[in-house]
């Protein structure tokens, strides 16, 4: 049992480094499976490889080109609202170009550089396809047919194209632009951003010292605002009703007299209210409605 355990520990130690190491692998030793399909046991793949067969209509290879394409999460940084991207979104070549693509995946997951719409007699399913789990590199070559055409280049892993890993490759003058290529063309179906006007500081921190009390007053004040607005309406109504009566009353008085009269009225009113309250209290307590037992 101990032996097994120690063996296990040893194996763990040996392999754990492999499990955690995310070393860059150059997948340059792929096995051919025929029909331009190459693969290795680490998941790197080339499909539709064609280094020498000229497509119909090409007399010769017009040009020999090489490109290096990076793919990964970090290339989406410059495109807000995208998650994955290639480092390049557009390429242009002349018809009958022989192109070698060095595809470098900088992430730790699978990515693809997949092209559709090639002639099916030369490329199975009309596809040229590079796939590699990162970090790593895989390379493949193809020869383009003649004619102006725009080819879709994308990663076909679920939602990778939708979330930004999309590009176009134009042969000759191309045949127009494809939609939703980050930084190049707009989405066909666009998101609704109308609800995206955020309050970027919803709870401002209280400012220190004297201004702290001011901000406190502000909140109270703002709380009162709504109350005042209701009372204001009532005040306005009463004012409208009283206005004609007051107008009659103050006819022929000077401003100072009016002010003095108002003060007098107010003082009388206050006196009335105070007296009323005190009388009520007296009425209630003088009777001693409830006599406490110890008073006897």
């Amino acid at each position, binding site marked *: 049992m101990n032996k097994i355990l120690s063996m296990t520990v040893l194996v763990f130690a040996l392999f754990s480094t492999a499990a955690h190491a995310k070393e860059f692998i150059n997948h340059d030793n792929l096995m051919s499976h025929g029909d331009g399909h190459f693969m290795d046991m680490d998941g790197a793949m080339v499909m539709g490889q064609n280094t020498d067969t000229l497509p119909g209509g090409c007399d010769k290879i017009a040009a020999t080109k090489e490109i290096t394409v990076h793919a990964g999460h970090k290339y989406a940084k410059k495109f807000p*609202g995208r*998650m994955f991207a290639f480092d390049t979104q557009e390429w242009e070549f002349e018809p009958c170009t022989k192109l070698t693509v060095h595809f470098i995946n900088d992430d*730790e*997951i699978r990515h693809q550089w997949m092209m559709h719409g090639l002639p099916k007699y030369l490329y199975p399913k009309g596809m040229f396809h590079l796939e590699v789990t990162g970090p790593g590199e895989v390379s493949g070559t193809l020869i383009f047919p003649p004619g102006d055409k725009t080819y879709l280049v994308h990663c076909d892993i*679920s939602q990778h194209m939708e979330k930004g890993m999309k590009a176009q490759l134009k042969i000759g003058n191309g045949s127009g632009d494809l939609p939703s290529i980050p930084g190049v063309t707009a989405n066909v179906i666009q998101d609704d951003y109308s609800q995206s006007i955020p309050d970027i500081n919803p709870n401002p921190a209280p400012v220190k010292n004297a201004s702290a009390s001011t901000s406190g007053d502000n909140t109270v004040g703002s709380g009162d605002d709504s109350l005042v607005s209701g009372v204001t309406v009532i005040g306005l109504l009463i004012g409208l009703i009283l206005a004609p009566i007051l107008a009659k009353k103050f006819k022929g008085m000077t401003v100072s007299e009016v002010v003095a009269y108002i003060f007098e009225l107010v003082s009388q009113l206050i006196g009335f209210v105070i007296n009323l309250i005190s009388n009520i209290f007296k009425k209630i307590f003088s009777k001693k409605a409830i006599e406490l037992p110890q008073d006897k």
Partner: protein
Amino acid sequence: MQKITLSLILGAAVVLMPGLASAAADLPKTVKIDPGPVEPVCNQNNPDWRKAQTIEGVKIQESLRCSPDNPAQIAAEVKGTNNISMQTLMETYYAADAIIKKNDMDGDGDPDLIIIKLEVAELNGHSPDFDGYVPTFDIAPGVQPGMWVFAPKSRGMATNSFVGTDANPLLRAPSPVIRVEQGDVVWIQLENSHYFPHTIHLHGVDHPWVDSSGEGNDGVPQTSDKFVLPGQSKTYEIRPRQPGTFVYHCHVQTHVHLAMGLVGMFVVEENRPNNWVQTFNVGGGQVRHPSKAILEKYDTEYDLHYHAMDKELHSIIQKYNDPRLIARDMNRLYDMTDSTEDYHTLNGRSFPYTIRESMIVTEPNQEIKIRMFNSTGELLAIHTHGHKGTITHYDGVEHNPSAQIMRDVYNLAPAQRNDLMISTKDDGLHSYGEGIWIFHDHREKGITTDGMNPGGNVSAVVYKKYLTEEGLPKGIGESITPLFTKTFFQRKYPVWQDIDEWNSLGEVDASDYVPPPPAVPVEIEPAPKGMGSDQASVSDNSGSFTNFLFGLIIGIVVYLLIINREKVMALVSSSKGGN
């Protein structure tokens, strides 16, 4: 003369009246709703896949259902993608490094280091390019809730072809059942191919809290683990000492990520010599290569994963393309405490699709091992028709054999697992005999798809005697073909259309219908007194009684005021004048 003409006309009108009235008094007519295209009940039959066979030295059990698992795929799952021929591998969608099995450390004939790679796939997601979802996975005809799943690492396209949008067979709900052997060193490598952060938490599975390098191994961001960000990978290391039926799930924003589908069964099989277990059971259901320990006691084994979805949550990823908007809606605007579950699935599908994939096919005198898992948010009450099963394990732990109970309704709390033994011994207790016996949730919403029945998590135990060549139940009840239409689940097809020869419960068509004026009842017998009018007066009385009480009180107050008017005046005047 004029008078006679008038009376003639009036008389004719009176005579004709009944005829006219009856024509006008007809109710609207019944019409038939065109169900539209009807899918074949069994859509993709691979007869060769159904037979018992041996591929790459892997014994694969017979699977007589309509959509059996691909035997080449099972061979890869048992041997590992590194131990099979390229030809077999190419018959699957697996990546070459999806399942690595090696190092027979204890020399008992099976590999003891298992490296499993999982990706995160979105199903029925949004496209900025067209008005539809991609890649699609229908849980029922035309029903496509947005979902996330852990998926075995695949190669090539997410869809079956460039033309269609349907997901490749490895990208499906539920997240695959993972099977390992007790004592195996298992590395689960999460390659986060999704646009949100995720982790894996191994629920119930024996695992150290930190891995060999001291990194978090429990999957909980609040305690041990960093998020596995989009494009990153992370390996979880375990060596489970206890067998049982367990769970794995994402632990980032768990309330929604689990509900979205990032949850699956994790089975640890008992250790036996030369025990190659089927690492993945994609889509759950029958385990076509059961472990040695299972075959000691049972004839067949089934994984049944129950899940439920709230369509409000599952439509968020279909509403936007921008991940920031999806995160906003899902993490902040969506309130799970107000949620209701609308879709109820068994192994990722709802009835009627469940009968293509998740039927239990059996014959008399067999022992069936069932592992049942509830990943919904509510208690489940699964009922088996025609059988009483014995619950042998709860949450992966064996129940005291002498205390094990038999039931025909099995309660499963959220995240709970029950291991069942179903015996097809026809003794009136274990089994009532051969037939097509359905099993389903007995909370009745569980047998609906967004409220449409039949739907939900219904499936069946079907005896071979009642199975067609195609692997479908040979039913003798009503036709189930209308259920294989989108029209049905769009609620546009009357559930009882054509139940009899004149379609008496069909759809009403009132498009050119003018209702006649309501008839005035002829008094045949004087109506008995009371009844309706009485009730009205009772309710009136209660109202007027309140009014009366109110009036009485006001009267008393006014009387008291008048009586004491001098005191009141004195009080008022004394207040006015001051003392």
